[in-house]
Each structure stands twice: as structure tokens, then as C-alpha cells.
């Protein structure tokens, strides 16, 4: 078997290094944390074991959408080892939104449910106990009575007239962007392009929510320090979001909190929300002891926020020679019950349209929609990845319909330096043409001479 030990092809970069005098590009640099990992000495948050550690487990909503008629914690408090049961009344500023500090509004998500649950698995009561087993028993013993409400689980149904209102803090089932019902792009005249086109192709794409599924589940250990500060050992990917939001929720100055983080047992975007730390801090203050709150595997899979499901409809005006002259996109991001990072992800999707192509007429409506599903949030390239799946599937289908080489179709339409994008920015530093040419070469795909002569910096071959 022949294989390369390091993922870096030192050979491929050799010439570049010789020409430029670069000394780091193309050289193998050992990870600074690798020795800790292979000896088992890297300290993950759950490896911290302070004395008198108490454990927190959540009682979660058993409904997609319901009014809470009553919460009875008597049986939970009677479980041996249970120390406290927290409800929304114990959380100083119970309603928040994670991107508040960069100006996103409104606060739309309770730390613990108040009068209503909006998705299956939403936190209702937090049970603190001497042992994890007692906390689990306590959480199971909490009794919540519900009055069911009609729920909506589909983005287009959620936007229909008369759909059940998911999130009262938002006020309607879509996020409002500066007074508009969605993120929009208006560039040129797509309808005129469709009228003049040789072909009009319209297809629809749908993705599912995708769980990041890190091997280490989401969690934290909060330790009240002698100086009155709270030390938070967390596997968050976003130490400062955690610090800021937790302080706002607790109503304390930021310097009351200290985050120990940076060691993440896999995150992939799934550990960017601030969900476990605020309630663990409230718990640690309530019992004045260190508290651990860590998701079990089922919670990680069910309630940690996944990549949003998206529905994308693309309608293209295409000429016989392969030029795409108009592109109309209607895109729905399923945010689930709360905003989290989805308004931002939807903006990213809009910013990515119409893909890396020069299309003179573009129209897009990108909706960030609230449904009674698990809130979705960040995951590697969120907003862009699923849009790319749709855009590139669309390009392949067009090429097939025209009987054209799919690479040629992309080369004809690729951005060149100096092109005006749909967002009215001038494209610079474009490289799609060269990347396609190189990929074709590596894949042994023969490009005809005129395609090989194309360049991102000239209009050759167009």
C-alpha cells in the first residue's frame, strides 16, 4: 500500500517554495495539542471534577406546541438526592437571543419555558441533584400539564395565512429584516430574461436538518469560586458569546464570569449556541456548589441545534449556448422555534446567490421561517452549503438538458474579474475558471482547447 503520512503534499509545493522563498507553505507542522490527545492528558470540560459536584438534568417538553397549564415539582423534590428544581422564575433575565450583542433583535427564546412550549424537547424545569442518576429521576418526576396548540412543521405552511403563530416574541412566523419579510436580491429584470430565454428550467431542492453529532456532547461544569466569581468549564466553540450572553441572562457584570474553554471534542458549529451555561450558572448559584450539566447522547441528537433544513426553488433563463441570463431563487430556511443563528445563516445564503456565476438578472427571496421544530443554528458553512447543493445540482441538470459538458457550462457562466455581482459589488480575485481547469486536469477530464484558454482575468472564449 502506498500512502502519504501527512495530509500535506510537500512535493507539490516544492517548486513554489523554491521560487518564492516561502518557508512555511508546504511544510508539515505538528499540531500543538496532539501530544496531549495521544497521551490522554488533554483536559476536556468533563475531566474537571471539583469536590461537592452536583448534577443538572432537564425536564423537557413532551409536545411540539402547547400552552403550559401547570408544572408540579412535588414528586421531583421528593426524589432522594434532589436538591432543587429550577423554573423560569429562578432565571433573572429569562428571555434572550444569542446574537443580541451584534444587534440582532428581538429577544425571543426563554432559558426555561414560561407559559408555552414551542418544540418537542424544549427545556421546562432544571433538576439539580447529588448524583446524575438522582437528577435524571427527578427530571422524570416533574409533571407538566399541557393544553395542546396546533403546530406547524413545514416552512411554506408556516408562512400561509392563518398558520399557528410559533413565536410570540417574533410576532409572525418569519424573521423581519429591516422592515422586510425576507432577505431580498433585485438585480436586472428576471421576468424579461425568462421571456427572451431559449429555455426556462425550474427545479426544487429540499434538505433535512443535519446534526453535527460531535463525539463529545454539549456541556459545562460551573464552579463558584471563593472570590464570588463563577468559573465555567465549557466545550463551547464560542467562549465570548457564552460569557456575554450568560452575564446578560444572569444580570451580572461580565467580570463575574470566567470561562475556561478552547478544548472542544468536536463542534462543527453545534457548540456555538449558548444553551447549557446560563442555566448551569443559575443552578450553581442556587445551591452554592459546582454544577455539571452535560447532554446525554439522545439530547445531543434531539435538542442540540442542527444545520437548518432548507427548501430552495431555482428558476433559470438559459440560452442554447449555455449562458444563464436570469436566475430566480426562492429559499426557505427552517429556523425551528427560535432565531439563534438562523437569521444570520439566511443572510449568508442570500449573500451567496446566485452562486459564483455572472448572471445579469437575479431575483431572490430568502425567508427565515419559524416552525415548531428544534431550533436550528450553525454548522460548517451554514446558509451556503445547502444553497451550493441546490445551485450546483441545478447547473448539472441544465448541462444534461442541453447535452453540454457540465464543466463548460460552468466555465461559460463563471465570474470574471470586473464583473458586477448581483449585490452590486465588483468581482475581484476570482479563480473559478482556473480551479475548474485544474480540477479537470487532475480528474483526467479532457477540456477542449477553447475552455483551456479561458481565464478569470480576460474575456477570452466568451
Amino acid at each position, binding site marked *: 500500500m502506498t500512502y502519504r503520512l*501527512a495530509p500535506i503534499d510537500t512535493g507539490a509545493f516544492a517548486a513554489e517554495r523554491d521560487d518564492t522563498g516561502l518557508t512555511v507553505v508546504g511544510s508539515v507542522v505538528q*499540531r500543538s495539542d496532539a501530544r496531549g490527545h*495521544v497521551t*490522554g492528558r488533554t483536559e476536556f470540560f468533563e475531566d474537571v471534577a471539583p469536590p461537592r459536584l452536583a448534577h443538572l438534568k432537564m425536564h423537557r417538553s413532551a409536545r411540539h406546541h402547547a400552552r403550559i397549564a401547570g408544572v408540579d415539582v412535588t414528586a421531583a423534590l421528593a426524589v432522594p438526592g434532589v436538591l432543587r428544581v429550577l423554573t423560569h422564575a429562578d432565571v433573572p433575565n429569562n428571555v434572550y437571543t444569542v446574537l443580541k450583542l451584534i444587534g440582532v433583535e428581538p429577544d425571543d427564546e426563554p432559558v426555561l419555558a414560561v407559559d408555552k412550549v414551542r418544540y418537542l424537547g424544549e427545556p421546562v424545569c432544571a433538576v439539580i441533584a447529588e448524583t446524575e442518576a438522582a437528577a435524571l429521576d427527578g427530571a422524570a418526576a416533574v409533571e407538566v400539564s399541557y393544553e395542546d396548540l396546533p403546530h406547524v412543521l413545514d416552512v411554506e405552511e408556516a408562512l400561509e395565512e392563518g398558520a399557528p403563530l410559533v413565536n410570540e416574541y417574533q410576532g409572525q412566523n418569519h424573521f423581519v429584516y429591516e422592515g422586510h419579510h425576507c432577505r431580498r436580491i433585485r438585480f436586472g429584470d428576471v421576468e424579461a430574461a425568462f421571456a427572451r430565454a431559449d429555455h426556462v428550467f425550474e427545479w426544487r431542492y429540499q434538505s433535512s436538518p443535519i446534526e453535527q453529532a460531535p*463525539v463529545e456532547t454539549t456541556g459545562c461544569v460551573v464552579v463558584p469560586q471563593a472570590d464570588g466569581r463563577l468559573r465555567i468549564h465549557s466545550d463551547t466553540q464560542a467562549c465570548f458569546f457564552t460569557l456575554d450572553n450568560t452575564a446578560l441572562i444572569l444580570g451580572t457584570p461580565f467580570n463575574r464570569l470566567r470561562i475556561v474553554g478552547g478544548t*472542544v471534542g468536536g463542534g*462543527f458549529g453545534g457548540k456555538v449556541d449558548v444553551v447549557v451555561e446560563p442555566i448551569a450558572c443559575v443552578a450553581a448559584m442556587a445551591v452554592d456548589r459546582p454544577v455539571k450539566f452535560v447532554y446525554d447522547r439522545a439530547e445531543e441528537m434531539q435538542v442540540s441545534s442542527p444545520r437548518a433544513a432548507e427548501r430552495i426553488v431555482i428558476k433559470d433563463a438559459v440560452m442554447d449556448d449555455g449562458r444563464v441570463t436570469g436566475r430566480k431563487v426562492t429559499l426557505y430556511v427552517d429556523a425551528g422555534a427560535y432565531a439563534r443563528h438562523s437569521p444570520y445563516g439566511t443572510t449568508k445564503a442570500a449573500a451567496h446567490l446566485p452562486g459564483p456565476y455572472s448572471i445579469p438578472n437575479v431575483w431572490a427571496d430568502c425567508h427565515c421561517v419559524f416552525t415548531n421544530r428544534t431550533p436550528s443554528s450553525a454548522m460548517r458553512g451554514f446558509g451556503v452549503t445547502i444553497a451550493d447543493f441546490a445551485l450546483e445540482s441545478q447547473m448539472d441538470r441544465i448541462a444534461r438538458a442541453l447535452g453540454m459538458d457540465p464543466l463548460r457550462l460552468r466555465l461559460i457562466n463563471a465570474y470574471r474579474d470586473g464583473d458586477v455581482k448581483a449585490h452590486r459589488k465588483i468581482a475581484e480575485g476570482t479563480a473559478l475558471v482556473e480551479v475548474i481547469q485544474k480540477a479537470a486536469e487532475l480528474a483526467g477530464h479532457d477540456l477542449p482547447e477553447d475552455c483551456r484558454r479561458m481565464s478569470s482575468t480576460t474575456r477570452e472564449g466568451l
Partner: protein
Amino acid sequence: MPSQIVSLVVNGERREFIAAPGATLLACLRESLGLIAAKRGCAQGACGTCTVLVEGRPEASCLVPVETVAGASVRTLEGVTAGGELDEVQSAFIDCFATQCGFCTSGMIMVAEALLERNPDPSEDDVIEAVSGNVCRCTGYRPIVIAIMEAARRRRERAVPR
């Protein structure tokens, strides 16, 4: 059922501790003995990150009630590094970039140790078979398989008398 005193030979040393009824080997290693290399990823036998060697065999320690292995010899990643020197598997994991977040690494290395003990010259299929119960979400498995093949090669080379 009361708690009981359990004794194990861990990384060559006899250790005694009190275990609550039903306590798992993983919980005892981490909480009673302070050996934290083995991790809890699922607590249901699905991810392999809690793998340790019991009498030389890889076991998901989250599924092993500790009283069922009382008296057994147990090896964890801490025992692999005894003396502070990295062995061939550990150094190959570093050199081949087979560890990223590191959360699965302890389990992966223990599985590899058991394999190489049994079979010093494994085929790629043998390696894939050996790690098939261990989940890694970061590295894409390829570097892990390469690292274990490389470790086997280095260990065989070292065994050849010069």
C-alpha cells in the same frame, strides 16, 4: 444492594475502590481512580471513545458493570504512556494527523494496541475491522487507518534485531 469494594489491576497496579451497585467500569476509572483518558461519548456502547483493554481485549467500558470484571487487569491510555515515552501507535497518530479534537483518540489508540498485540502485521482490512466500533467525527478515518498501519510497520522494524 450496598456499595462494595472492588479491586482491579489497572495499568499494572492493584487498585481498590468503593463502587455503587451497577457502577460502570468507565465511571470507576474516571471518578474513583482519576483516570480520565477514556471518555464518555454516548454511554450506550455506540461510539467506542470509552474503550479500554480488559485482559487485553478492547471493551466499551461504559457498558461494563465494574463488579463483573472484579480482579481483572485493565489497561487505559495512561498505561500506554507509562514512563513518559510515546509508543509507536501514539507517535504515528501524531505524525499522520490521526487526531484532531482528540476526543475519540484514547479509544482509537486502545483498539489499535489490542490489534497489534494480536496481529503485528495487519492488513488494511484488519485495521478497518478493528476500528469499526469507534466513531471519529473529525479526521475522516483515513488518517487513523494510515496511522495504525504505520505504527505496525514501525513496531515490526523495531522488533528486528540489528
